[in-house]
């Protein structure tokens, strides 16, 4: 087991380095000189000496390979440099916005699991009935609905209902408050985004839970359990669900990693100041240093989550022994 974890960690290194190289090269493929854009922002003549000074300051006068190695070193030491737009340290910008994104992501995952596992199980148990059809339609609608549109619709609903009731439209607060400081204000801020993202992600999990459950229910040991005269509740909970949840765990992990990507758009809808919104702003402002750092952050989260799932999977299913 430990050998497997170490092997997986070592395998993650070339992937991370490759991702870093890709981001590095992508952002250097942008036409135009960053320093010229920076210095000539007002359309004034740019002095070659100041361009050279700027190149030297940003390390752009070094050979490409030296630049890349320096960039790699900075990435692994979490020193992402200074934002080209705001002038603040990138790590500070990220630290300020990461908590809210993580909170929404975790909450959305919890909502997705709470929706998906019971509904998927019931749907499998009642296969072919009206209830089963309703759950399946819910699931496929969730896959086809963009979460940002669901967000817009829920905002419209909240605005209309609140103005009909109180005469004044209510909007969720924008400034982030920690859940330990003011839980109600925090919840009123993150609940709607978490529900809209959570519903979408529950859709895929619901389908997998249903199909895994259907498969397990046809196994011999379920027939044996029933033949022994066990209560249906015990057969379902202890014998079927436990085994059916294995692929579901994997999927939840993968979805969590994708969720970070999905947040980019949801945060925009709800005006949440998270890392997703920061990334969009960085792209709009052509702040390459920030884009580079944020994309790498998402990739690291993605790779680490995948690693955790694989280890968890081996731990949950004793039949799997990685060599």
């Amino acid at each position, binding site marked *: 087991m430990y050998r497997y974890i170490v092997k997986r960690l070592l395998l993650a290194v070339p992937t991370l380095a490759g*991702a870093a190289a890709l981001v590095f090269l992508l952002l250097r493929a942008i036409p135009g000189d960053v320093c010229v854009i920076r210095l000539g922002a007002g359309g004034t003549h740019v002095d070659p000496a100041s361009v050279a000074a700027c190149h030297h300051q940003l390390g752009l006068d070094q050979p490409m390979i030296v630049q890349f190695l320096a960039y790699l070193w900075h990435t692994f030491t979490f020193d992402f440099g200074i934002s080209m737009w705001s002038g603040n340290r990138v790590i500070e910008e990220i630290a300020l916005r990461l908590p809210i994104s993580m909170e929404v992501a975790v909450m959305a995952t919890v909502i997705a699991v709470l929706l998906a596992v019971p509904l998927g199980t019931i749907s499998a148990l009642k296969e072919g009935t009206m209830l089963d059809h309703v759950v399946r339609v819910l699931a496929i609608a969730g896959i086809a609905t963009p979460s940002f549109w669901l967000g817009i619709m829920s905002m419209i609903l909240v605005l209309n209902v609140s103005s009909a009731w109180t005469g004044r439209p209510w909007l969720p607060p924008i400034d982030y408050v920690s859940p330990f400081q003011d839980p109600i204000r925090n919840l009123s801020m993150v609940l709607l985004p978490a529900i809209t993202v959570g519903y979408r992600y529950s859709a895929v999990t619901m389908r997998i839970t249903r199909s895994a459950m259907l498969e397990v229910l046809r196994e011999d040991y379920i027939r044996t359990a029933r033949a022994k005269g066990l209560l249906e509740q015990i057969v379902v909970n202890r014998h079927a669900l436990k085994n059916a949840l294995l692929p579901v765990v994997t999927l939840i992990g993968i979805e969590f990693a994708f969720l970070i990507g999905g947040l980019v758009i949801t945060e925009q809808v709800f005006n949440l100041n998270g890392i997703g919104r920061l990334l969009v702003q960085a*792209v709009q402002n052509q702040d390459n240093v920030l884009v580079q750092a944020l994309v790498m952050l998402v990739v690291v989260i993605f790779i680490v989550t995948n690693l955790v799932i694989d280890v968890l999977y081996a731990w949950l299913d004793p039949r799997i022994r990685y060599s």
Partner: protein
Amino acid sequence: MTVVAHDPTAPSWRPQTRLGKVLNFCRRRPLGVAGLIIVLIIFFAGLSADWIAPFDPEENDFASMMQAPSWIHLFGTDQFGRDIFSRLVFGARTALIVGFGCAVGGGLIGLVLGVTSAYFGGWFDLLFQRILDVLMAFPLIILALAVVSVFGTGVFNVIIAITIPLIPRCGRVVRASALAVREVPYVDAARAMGFGHARIVLCHMLPNVLAPFLIMLSAFVGQAILAEASLSYLGLGVQEPVAAWGLMLQGSAEDYATTAPWIAIFPGVAIVLTVLGASLFGDALRDAIDPKLRDR
């Protein structure tokens, strides 16, 4: 070449004709057919947008801003007085160009690379695998955003931005199928006949991995349309005044929630219906081609 000869020992059932197969598919998978019909309607709307749309989708009409749905403006008008129905119909064209462009582009490149990688094996395959690992470590929308930040916005650049993340997703699945095909004797036979690598890959291996490829292609269309809508919504995709569904939703939530909610409702419904149609049809196609994967 097929030789048809009467064989008295042949079973009494007759092989299904192509039409029979299609009719059977329709009877057994009504949801898939419904999906196909939706996609065909959107396709028709996109193709004949010039004739269907009653108004110019890009012309502002400040005399009729934010009008509610009526017989003149079927789905109402937006904040610039543009007819929403006309913009939806032209938006279908944008969605189809991006959806099919990305799916076909990403799919074909992934197909050729996947089969080639499986065929050659060795260091080429290993290198290809590692490149796929790297590309797969980026969530689709994040990689698309990174590419947009390099190439800029606009329909063509959006197609490139969404195509690139689709390539490894197709390449991986195709490679897995192609690895099985490589072991089949007819590939050895082709090699023994002295055929070139290109001929073996393109004529002998490629047609035999088309089943998973087609299934994936139908899923890609929906994914690409969703990704385009997301990018355009963020203001990093298709640019005004071109009609695109995601772009139509931009800024519509708070600004017009109480005064003109139809601005946000109809484009969203169009996206949902199209993606729903594509995924229903894709699911049915997958079930028909590969029953083992049913309900996955």
